[in-house]
């Protein structure tokens, strides 16, 4: 299995010279199994770049199939949806899966709202030419995704919940834990540890520097240290810091990686837009 980060930024897309090495696009991550099956996690602005990549292949001819998992529906995880070009090609089959938000609206109704005529000229999911199905699941179980084994769990994100994923293929496992903040930094929740157990790669929310975290407890995000604690307790083999703050320049992220690496024996890197990586 390979992984490619198309968007690693949290909250807000950042353009400009200070954000070129790690990238400024919001959350979107592709997993590619050895047999060619693909899976996308989240539809932040990074998904618009992934879309260009897909359109060069079978999706440009209306012959693509893609499952998309959503962690939640905050804008930085869905703002690429109206510009995800495979949606506009008849014949593509795209399945979006996620939990219903706690507001009481279904996932489908929430995404309909995103495309409501006030907000988007697309004026509703029904105007996407591709076959798009939206299905809600209750986190805690497994999902049927061709080519992958996917386990899910709800984790706390401020006053709401997001879905975390454990995704396996080809004998390798990636755990996706973003956006998350545990009630106590030193006591990660058991469902998070279970998803990360022996993972080959743990992708973890690292929005805050340790200093910022003291001022922003309860906002729903973690400092890099939270990922280290989960990785060590769950014996994950590698840790990718993810969901970088929009205020974190490339140089600042470099410093976080150096500091975090000095605090643990788990190999640590900061997720960056770029090439396919072997899991």
């Amino acid at each position, binding site marked *: 299995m390979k992984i490619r980060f198309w968007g690693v930024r949290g909250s807000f*897309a950042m353009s400009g010279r200070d954000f070129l090495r790690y990238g400024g696009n919001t959350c979107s991550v592709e997993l590619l199994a050895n047999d060619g099956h693909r899976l996308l996690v989240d539809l932040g602005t990074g998904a618009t770049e992934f879309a260009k990549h897909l359109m060069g292949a079978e999706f440009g001819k209306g012959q693509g199939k893609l499952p998309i998992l959503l962690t939640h529906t905050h804008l930085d995880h869905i703002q690429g949806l109206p510009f995800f070009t495979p949606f506009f090609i008849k014949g593509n089959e795209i399945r979006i899966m996620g939990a219903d938000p706690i507001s009481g609206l279904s996932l489908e109704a929430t995404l309909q*709202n995103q495309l409501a005529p006030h907000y988007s000229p697309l*004026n509703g999911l029904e105007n996407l030419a591709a076959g798009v199905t939206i299905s809600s699941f209750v986190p805690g179980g497994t999902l049927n995704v061709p080519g992958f084994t996917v386990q899910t769990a709800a984790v706390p994100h401020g006053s709401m919940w997001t879905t975390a994923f454990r995704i396996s293929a080809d004998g390798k496992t990636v755990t996706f834990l973003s956006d998350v903040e545990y009630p106590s930094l030193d006591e990660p929740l058991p469902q998070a540890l279970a998803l990360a157990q022996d993972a080959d790669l743990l992708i973890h929310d690292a929005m805050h520097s340790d200093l910022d975290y003291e001022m922003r407890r309860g906002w729903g995000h973690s400092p890099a240290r939270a990922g280290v604690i989960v990785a060590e307790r769950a014996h994950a083999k590698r840790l990718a810091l993810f969901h970088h703050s929009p205020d974190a320049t490339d140089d600042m992220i470099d410093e976080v990686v150096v500091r975090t690496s000095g605090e643990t024996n788990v190999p640590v890197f900061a997720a960056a837009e770029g090439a396919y990586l072997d899991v």
Partner: protein
Amino acid sequence: MQITFWGVRGSYPVPGAATVRYGGQTSCVEVRTAAGECVIVDAGTGMRQLGNKLAREANGQPSQYHVLLSHVHWDHIQGLPFFSPAYIPGTRISVYALLTAADELNQVIGGITRHEFFPMPLEAVPAAFDFHQVEPGVDFVVGGFHITPIALNHPFGSVGYRIDADGSSVAYVADTAPFDKVLHKQHFLAGPEPLSADDQVALTAMRDALVARLRGVDTVIYDTHFLPDEYERFPHYGHSTPDQALVICQEAGVRRLVLYHHAPGHSDEQMDQVAATYLAKGAAIGIEVLTSFEGMSLPIGAG
């Protein structure tokens, strides 16, 4: 007056090496009088950086901000929840937009911050918001600014603004399609639809009113999202080309045009070519053509 561009991109923000010079953030322009009064036009992602500057200037003190919205597509409102002065208690934010009822506007803006899209609901944001409906043809005054809303041709409606202050004037004409092939209404367009006689009359009236309101304006900021070949493929998307903007400006006797709302796929190199091409085309008919980039400031008129 002085104008500053905080976001010049259309559709969605585009980070990366290809947009470093012109910028990747979406629509937001600051208009300021010599005395320091300010209106903000559109609340795209560029508004975050503007907000950070204004919050530093405010130094923790509450202030009042006026935001004129052309319409409420995501690329024109997405910066609002990230406008840091909104989190200073006592701040007041007045939002002006084209909608049938101010209450509905409250619902739409409130909808951005509803739980599903953003962590904090609008009611929990410390700033107090008030909403004002604007109507093309009904001028209004905000402090020292005289504001003239102008109907534009865009899916579900859009409004431009002529802003007069300090004895000079600037017009913000985005988002808009030209006024010939397509009349945008309140429904989804999969492609151009045949125009009825009434549609033709409506388009001509809209175009005439725009040209009339632009007469005497010092600087016109115009939606020039598309290059001509792109427009031919997507005439129903609701955006114009620089050539179409030049025709309108020439008829209105406008001497300075600023290209704006660049397509997200246009790289810095392409924008350099656009800038050079239209600088020359404009010069040939006596119009100074500038291509906006993030951070560009322009003095308007004498003061």
